[in-house]
C-alpha cells in the first residue's frame, strides 16, 4: 500500500492545536502567543507546515522501544512530548483533574548546538481542574542552557521549576505551579509501559502519517493540590503518554477528539478521532487489559458521536459524547466534569477530566482541538 519513500506520517497527539491549522499560521501569527520570536520558530516546530521531514528522522513500523533510553528526548525527530493526565479525588470524593505536559520541538534538523544556539524549543502546560474552576499555566524555554530538558537515569523532565522526577519513570513526583494554583503528586506503578498502535507505531491517517507512541496508564497517585482556598490532599490514577515524530497531520485534518479512560475493573481505553474536512474521520483505539496487554483497533472500529455542546471561550465545544467500540461490546456516555476546561494557551484547546457511564463505569481525560 505504500510507495517506497518513507511514509509521510505524522505525529499526532497533542501539540495543542495548530498542527493542522496552516491557514491560521500563515494568516495570523499574532494569534500564536509564543512570543514573537519563538513564535515563528515554534510554529514551524510544532506545526511543521508546508515542510516535509527533510533532515529529520521518520517513524518506521515495528519499532522496538528501549527503556529507559526512549523515555528521554529524541532530538532526531522534530517533535515530542511527555504528557501526564491524572484523575484525582479528595477525602470527600470530590473529583479533580491535573495535566502536566512538556513539549519539545526541534527548530532545525542536524546536530544540536550548545548554549543559546541550541535550536530546541520547550513548552510546558500545567492545568488543574475542579468541578467549578479550571487553572492553566504555560512556560517556554529553549534547550542548551539547562532551563528545560529531560534526563533518563535518574528520570527527570523539567521546564523552570516544573518537573516530573524520580529514580525511575515508574516512580516519580510531579510538580507545577501557576500564579493561583500548584500541585505536588507522587506517581507510582509496577505495571509495564504499553505500546499504542501497531506495537508502538501509531498511524494517524489513511495516507499513513504516523508516530511512535507508548503509554503508562496505570499510575497510582497521591499528593497535594494547592488552590486559592487552600491545600487539598488527593489520591487517584494517572496516565502518561509518550509520543514523537517529525511530520504533521494530513492537511485536511482539522482537529481531534482524544479519549484516555480508566474503566472500573482496571481496563483502560485509548481512543481518538482525527476529523477530516475532506473525507471520513480517522479513528484509532487501544483496549488495555488490567495486566497491560494492548489490543489495538484499526480505523473505523471505534465511533465517537457528540451528544451535547457547550459554549466555551466563544466556541461550541462538544462536552458529552457517545463512544462505541462494538468489538469490546462498549457503548458509553463520556461527559465533562467541568465544561469550561479551556486551556487558554498559545494554541488554545480543551483538556479536562470526564466521567464514563453506561455499561462500563469509569473516569478519564478528554482532549479536543481544532474547534473554532
Amino acid at each position, binding site marked *: 500500500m505504500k510507495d517506497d519513500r518513507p511514509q509521510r506520517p505524522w505525529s499526532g497527539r497533542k501539540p495543542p492545536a495548530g498542527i493542522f491549522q496552516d491557514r491560521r499560521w500563515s494568516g495570523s501569527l499574532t494569534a500564536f*502567543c509564543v512570543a514573537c520570536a519563538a513564535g515563528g520558530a515554534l510554529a514551524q516546530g510544532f506545526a511543521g507546515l508546508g515542510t516535509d521531514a527533510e533532515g529529520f528522522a521518520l517513524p518506521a513500523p515495528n519499532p522496538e522501544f528501549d527503556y529507559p533510553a526512549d523515555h528521554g528526548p529524541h532530538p532526531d525527530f522534530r517533535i515530542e512530548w511527555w504528557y501526564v493526565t491524572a484523575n484525582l479525588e479528595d477525602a470527600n470524593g470530590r473529583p479533580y483533574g491535573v495535566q502536566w505536559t512538556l513539549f519539545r520541538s526541534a527548530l532545525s534538523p542536524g546536530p544540536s548546538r550548545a*548554549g543559546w544556539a541550541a535550536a530546541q524549543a520547550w513548552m510546558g502546560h500545567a492545568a488543574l481542574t475542579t468541578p467549578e474552576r479550571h487553572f492553566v499555566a504555560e512556560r517556554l524555554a529553549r534547550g542548551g542552557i539547562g532551563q528545560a530538558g529531560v534526563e533518563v537515569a535518574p528520570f527527570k523532565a523539567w521546564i523552570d521549576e516544573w518537573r516530573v522526577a524520580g529514580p525511575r519513570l515508574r516512580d516519580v513526583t510531579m510538580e507545577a505551579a501557576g500564579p493561583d494554583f500548584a500541585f505536588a503528586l507522587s506517581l507510582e506503578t509496577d505495571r509495564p509501559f504499553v505500546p499504542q498502535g501497531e506495537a508502538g507505531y501509531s498511524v494517524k491517517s489513511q495516507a499513513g502519517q504516523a508516530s511512535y507512541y507508548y503509554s503508562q496508564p496505570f499510575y497510582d497517585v497521591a499528593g497535594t493540590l494547592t488552590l486559592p482556598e487552600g491545600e487539598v490532599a488527593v489520591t487517584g490514577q494517572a496516565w502518561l503518554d509518550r509520543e514523537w515524530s517529525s511530520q504533521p497531520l494530513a492537511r485536511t485534518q482539522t482537529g481531534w477528539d482524544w479519549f484516555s479512560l480508566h474503566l472500573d475493573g482496571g481496563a483502560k481505553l485509548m481512543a481518538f478521532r482525527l476529523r477530516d474536512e475532506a473525507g471520513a474521520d480517522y479513528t484509532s483505539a487501544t483496549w488495555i487489559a488490567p495486566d497491560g496487554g494492548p489490543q489495538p483497533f484499526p480505523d473505523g472500529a471505534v465511533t465517537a458521536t457528540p451528544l451535547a455542546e457547550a459554549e466555551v471561550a466563544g466556541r461550541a465545544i462538544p462536552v458529552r459524547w457517545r463512544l462505541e467500540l462494538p468489538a469490546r461490546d462498549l457503548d458509553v456516555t463520556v461527559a465533562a466534569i467541568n465544561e469550561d476546561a479551556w486551556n487558554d494557551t498559545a494554541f488554545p484547546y480543551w483538556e479536562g477530566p470526564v466521567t464514563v457511564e453506561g455499561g462500563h463505569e469509569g473516569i478519564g481525560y478528554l482532549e479536543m482541538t481544532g474547534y473554532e
Partner: protein
Amino acid sequence: MLTAGLQALLSHWWRHPFQLVTLLIGLATATALWSGVQAINAEARASYDRAASALGQTPRPRITAPDGVPLEQEHFVALRRAGWLVTPLIEGRLSTEAGSVRLVGIDPFTLPPADLPDALEGDTALDLSFLTPPGQLITSPATAERLEGADLPPRLALDGIAPGLAYADIGIAQDLMDMDGRLTALLVLDDQPLGRPPLEEVAPGLVLRPPAQGGDISRLTDSFHLNLTAFGLLSFAVGLFIVRGAIGLAFEQRRPVFRTLRALGLSTRVLLGLLLAELLVFALVAGTLGIALGWLIASLLLPDVAATLRGLYGASVEGALTLRPAWWLSGVGIAVLGTLIAATASLWQVARLPLLAPAQPRAWAMASERTMRRQAVVALALIVFAVGVGLYGAGLVGGFVMLGALLVGAALLLPLLLHVALRLGARTARTPLADWFWADTRQQVPGLSLALMALLLALAANIGVGTMVSSFRLTFTGWLDQRLASELYVSSDDEAQAAALQEWLAPRTDAVLPIWRASGEIAGAPAEIYGVADHPTYRDNWPILAALPDVWDLVARGDGILVNEQLARREDLSPGDTMALPGWETRVAGIYSDYGNPSAQVLVGLETFDTRFPEAERLDFGLRLPQGEADALARALVEEFGLPAENIVDQASLKAFSLQVFERTFTVTGALNVLTLTVAGFAILTSLMTLARMRLPQVAPVWALGLTRARLARLELLRALLLAALTAVAALPVGLLLAWVLLAVINVEAFGWRLPMHVFPADWALLGALALLAAGLAALWPARRIATIPPSELLKVFANER
C-alpha cells in the same frame, strides 16, 4: 440677521486688509513659535519612548549584580528552575567603524511579547535566523543604513524601532559584547507562580531593584525640553502682544460701528457672539498657517536639536518630523486660546459699551496712573515671590517659576519706570516744545506699554541667554584646553597590543599616560571610573574646582579620589567627605569640572585602579609630545606600528568636535532669540499704528500752533526711539538677572554644573542698537503718515469735535 451683522463686521477687514494681515501674522507667528517648539519636543520624546520601550512599556523590577557588573548566566537558570519568572537581558554599546549602536539582547522565549516594541510584536521577524548564529540585528531603517558594511550579523530593518538601537537574540548579543555566559540583568515578570523561594536563597549576592521611574534619558533631557518649552512660551507671549495690538486696533476703529449695530437692533449677546465667531475664524486660519510655519521652524531646527541631544546626552532622536494629530490639535488650540486671551479685554469693553457715544473716541488702552500703580504693586509682589523661590525653592521647575515671575514682574513694572524716567526727563526741558514733547511722550506710555513690555521681555531674554551662552563658551574652551592636555590619544585593540604599543611609544614620546577605564555603579547610578597616572600633565592642567591640599599626592597614594562636579552636586560631596565605591570606601580629595558629560565620573590613582578593577580593559593612552610632532607620530603609528587610524585621535580634532557639539547646543536658543526679537519689533509697529489714529487730535493743536508736519513726524520718531532706549536700559538688569538664574540655577539643575558668569558689554551695545533699529523701523511708517497727512484731515479734528 446674523449674516447681515456678520457682513457688517467682516466688511471692516475688507476695507482694512493691512490690519487683517497684521492680526493673522501676529497670531500665526505666535502659534508657529509655540507649535514649532512643541513639534521638536514631541519628536524627541517619541524617540525616547521608543528607546525606553526597548525593554518593555511597563518598567519591570530588575535583578542585577550589586556593582553593576554582569551577572552569571547560571543565575538565570537557577532562578527559573526555582520558580522565578525572569527574562535575561544584555544591554551595551556596540562600537563599529560605522559608529556605535545600543545593543539589546533578548530571549524571545521568556520575554513577554507585550514587552517588545510594537514593530516586533506579532511579527515573524524573530525566527530561526534571529535565534541561531550568525543571528540578526533588528534596527530602524536609518540605523541599518548607517551600519551598512559593518562587520556585524545581518541587519533586518523594521519601521518603528528606536533609532540607534539594535535588537539581537541573547546568545548573539553575548558573542557581540564578549559576554559569554554572562548577562547584564534579569527582568522580573508579572504573574509569578506560587511557592517561590526568596531571592537570596536561590541567587545569593544578586540584588532586586524596583523598576526605574521613567527612562534615564527622558529624565536627563527633561531639562533641555523644559528650556525649549519656556522659550516657546515666551515667544508665544510676545506674539500675543501683536495679536492684542491688532485686535485692539480693529475693535477701537469699529467702536462706532458696534454702536450703530446696537442702535439698529443687534443685541449685545448677538454682537458678542458674532465677534467671537469672527475671532474664531481668524484663530483657525492663523492657527493653521502658524502650524505650517511651526512645522517649517521645527524641521529647520530639529537636526540641530537632534545633534545636541546626541552629543550632550547620548539620546538618539530621528532627524525627521512625524505628523502627530495631537500636535495639530494643540497648535490650533493654542491659537484659539491665544486669540481669546488677547481679545478678552476688547470683548469686555464691547459687552459694556454704552449705547450712546461719549463725546470723544476714547483711547482703548489709555490706562490711568492708578492702573499703573496697581500694576507696579503686582510687579513688586511677583519680584518678591521670585526672590523667595530663588532662596527657598528647588529644582528645575522652581528655577523656571522664578524666571517667569521675575520677567512678568519686570514687565509690569516697566510703565511706572518709564513714567518716572520721563518725569525726570521733563525737568531738563528748557523750551515749551521740549515740555510738550516730554509730557506727550508720557501720555503715550500707557498705549504703548504692551508693546514696550514685549520689547523688554525679548531684550531681557536675549541678554540673559546671550550672556549664558557666551559665558559657557568662554568657560568651555578654557576647560577644553585644560582637560585635553595630551597631544594625541590612542587606543589599542587588546592587552597584548597595548603592551607592545607602550613599548613602542616609550622612546618616541615625552610621556605615555595610561587611561584605564571601568564602568561601575556609584550611589545607584551608572558611573565611569578612570585610573590616571601621577604625572605633571594632570597636576598642571586638570580643571580642579575645589580640593584638599596636595590633592594629586593623595590620589597617587590611593588616599583619595577625584569626582566630577555632576557627581559632587548630586551626592552633595565636598573635598574631605567619605564616599562609597563598589567594594571599597574612600574619600573625596577634589572636585573637577566635567562639562558636556551627563554621567558621574571618578578619577582614581593608577595603583588603586589596578587593585580594585583587575578585570577592566587597559587599552587607552594619552601621549605627551613636543609641539608639532603629533601628526608625524600619528602617521608613524599607522605606518610603522600598524595601529588602525581610527584608534588615534589628536587633540585638535577632539576639541573641534567638542566645540561643534557645544555650538549646536545653542543654535536653537539663538534662533528662537532672533525670532522673539523680530516679533517684539512687530508688536511695536502694530501698537504705534493703533495709536497713530488717536494721535491726530493730540498732534493737531500743536500743528495749528505752528509746528510743521515734518517736524512733528521727526518728534514722533524720536519719541519711539526714546521709549525703546529707556526700555532697553530697563531690560539690561533684568537680562543679567536672567543670565544669573540660567547659569547658577537652571544649568545646575539641567546639566549638573555651574558656570562662572562673564559679562559682554559689547553684546549689550549691539542689542541696544538692534532695539533702537526695531523701534525706529516700527515708528517710521506712522511718522511718515503724520508727515504726509493732508491738512484738511488735521482740520477735521477741530470741525468734528461735537
